[in-house]
């Protein structure tokens, strides 16, 4: 096997983000190596979504800086794709599945130019990849939650980026969609992409991901799942509100509990 590259996809230094007078992220330092499939886990209000939004420049930062492949985001936007939480848009908007997926090409198209045949073909190929080819002409209000999620994934796929940032893609989806997403994440990793996923389900972390960041306003730990996903560190992340279930076949299963 070739020596793994030590390139850093995303470097975060001293990042602090606050909403009004409450700190949501405090002095976060984090290096995400290129080519990893990484989960960000932590309790509610830990700043997981905010971390992704800060990387994308969507929230104002109080202090610190983010570099993508060693450069400021503005210079490498085209190399970063974003899958927002699907609840963040109005699914009753009058538009079709194909139209939404083509929006992923708008950045490459630039100002004023309209999407054409190439964009259409790219969008159809991406829909095929997420098993939604037959839904291309469908009005988006007619989709189930899982289908909405897959449309958002297809929109990120047509961006043809090097780094994928996904905010809770597994949230409330059906089994088919969950399988599709897992397959897609593995395809992206084998294609050498860096994938960062905000994730809620602790039990599936070791199965789905090879890298993990534990976050609770501050950075608790980040590294390979084997090294970082330990009861001790999870307890520190969740502040004791955690129960560990049966640990068959050496794997670790944990659920975040308690907390009103």
């Amino acid at each position, binding site marked *: 096997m070739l020596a793994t590259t030590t390139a850093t996809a995303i470097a975060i230094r001293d990042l602090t983000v606050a909403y009004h007078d409450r700190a949501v992220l405090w002095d976060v330092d984090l290096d995400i190596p290129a080519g990893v499939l990484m989960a960000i886990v932590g309790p509610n209000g830990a700043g997981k979504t905010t971390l992704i*939004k800060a990387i994308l420049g969507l929230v104002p930062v109080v202090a610190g800086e983010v570099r993508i492949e060693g450069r400021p985001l503005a210079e490498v936007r085209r190399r970063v794709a974003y899958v*927002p939480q699907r609840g963040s*848009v109005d699914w009753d908007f*009058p538009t079709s599945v194909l139209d939404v997926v083509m*929006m992923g090409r708008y950045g490459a198209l630039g100002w004023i*130019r309209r999407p054409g045949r190439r964009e259409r073909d790219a969008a159809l190929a991406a829909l095929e990849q997420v098993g939604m080819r037959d839904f291309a002409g469908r009005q988006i209000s007619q989709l189930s939650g899982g289908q909405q999620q897959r449309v958002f994934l297809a929109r990120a796929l047509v961006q043809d980026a090097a780094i994928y940032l996904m905010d809770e893609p597994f949230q409330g989806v059906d089994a088919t969609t969950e399988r599709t997403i897992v397959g897609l994440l593995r395809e992206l990793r084998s294609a050498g992409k860096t994938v960062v996923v905000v994730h809620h389900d602790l039990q599936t972390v070791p199965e789905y991901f090879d890298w993990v960041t534990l976050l609770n306003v501050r950075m608790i730990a980040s590294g390979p799942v084997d090294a970082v996903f330990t009861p001790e560190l999870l307890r520190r992340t969740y502040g004791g509100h955690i129960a560990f279930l049966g640990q068959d076949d050496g794997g670790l299963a944990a659920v975040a509990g308690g907390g009103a």
Partner: protein
Amino acid sequence: MALPELFHDLLFDYTLRTVALGAAILGCVSGTLGSYAVLRRQSLLGDAISHAALPGIALAFLLTGSKAPLVLVLGAAAAGWLGTLLVMGVVRTTRVKFDSALGIILSVFFGVGLVLLTFIQKRPDATQAGLDRFLFGQAATLLAHDVVTMAALGGLALLTMLLFWKELKLLSFDPEFGSTLGFPIRALDVLLTTLLVVAIVVGLQTVGVVLMSALVVAPAAAARQWTNRLGVMVALAGSFGALAGVSGAVLSSSAARLPTGPLIVLCASALVLLSLCLAPNRGIVWNALRQRRNRRRLQVDGEAIP
């Protein structure tokens, strides 16, 4: 009035032709651009813009002493635009929510406008300024060159919308995603709002600041009922707006000499009512029929569901 006579008047009666054309333009422009306000759940933004325009009209008159429509419209646009930027600024920098910010700015600007208007009317030296026609609109005062101004302003706004079609769609559907693609979302927001300001000041003289927002919301709300495509919805909203404008103008000219602005608004509301009831898929009648059909099918298939 008989139909042939009506068409004759529409074509050859100067006043009616001018008013109907003006009303069609203002309805088309505000209906088209109102689609975005409705889709972005900012329907009341139109209300804030039109009310905020009033002090601009009064100030423009006080500063220039001119009652020329273009001067007053520019004043209206400046004040409406300023009011909207203030709403956006308040939402961005404080904890005040959009609807509250809207309410505050709307009433402050409108209040100032009413005070200035009263001040102007009570000035001993000034002849009755007649600016109060901007409160409820006065279509009969429309002249041919007013209509040309309206068409030029409105046409410019619509062309800009078509040019930035893709960007405005992105802004309306998923602004955060648009921002990650590198589009300056805040600038696009200001652009779209500016277009809405233009649409509103185009109609102020005819419909008035109090009712103008109805022509931003009603045609778009009616159009949304009939289609699931943005392009069709925007075109339909423009057509509904124009239809309401012409119908209102014609109704007000026939017999009773009723006020044009309110009649245009009532025509637009009638279109909304019709659409809410009759539109396929979304309409009330359609849904009732579908439910009855389903119930009957269930009765045939098996036992009746009470």
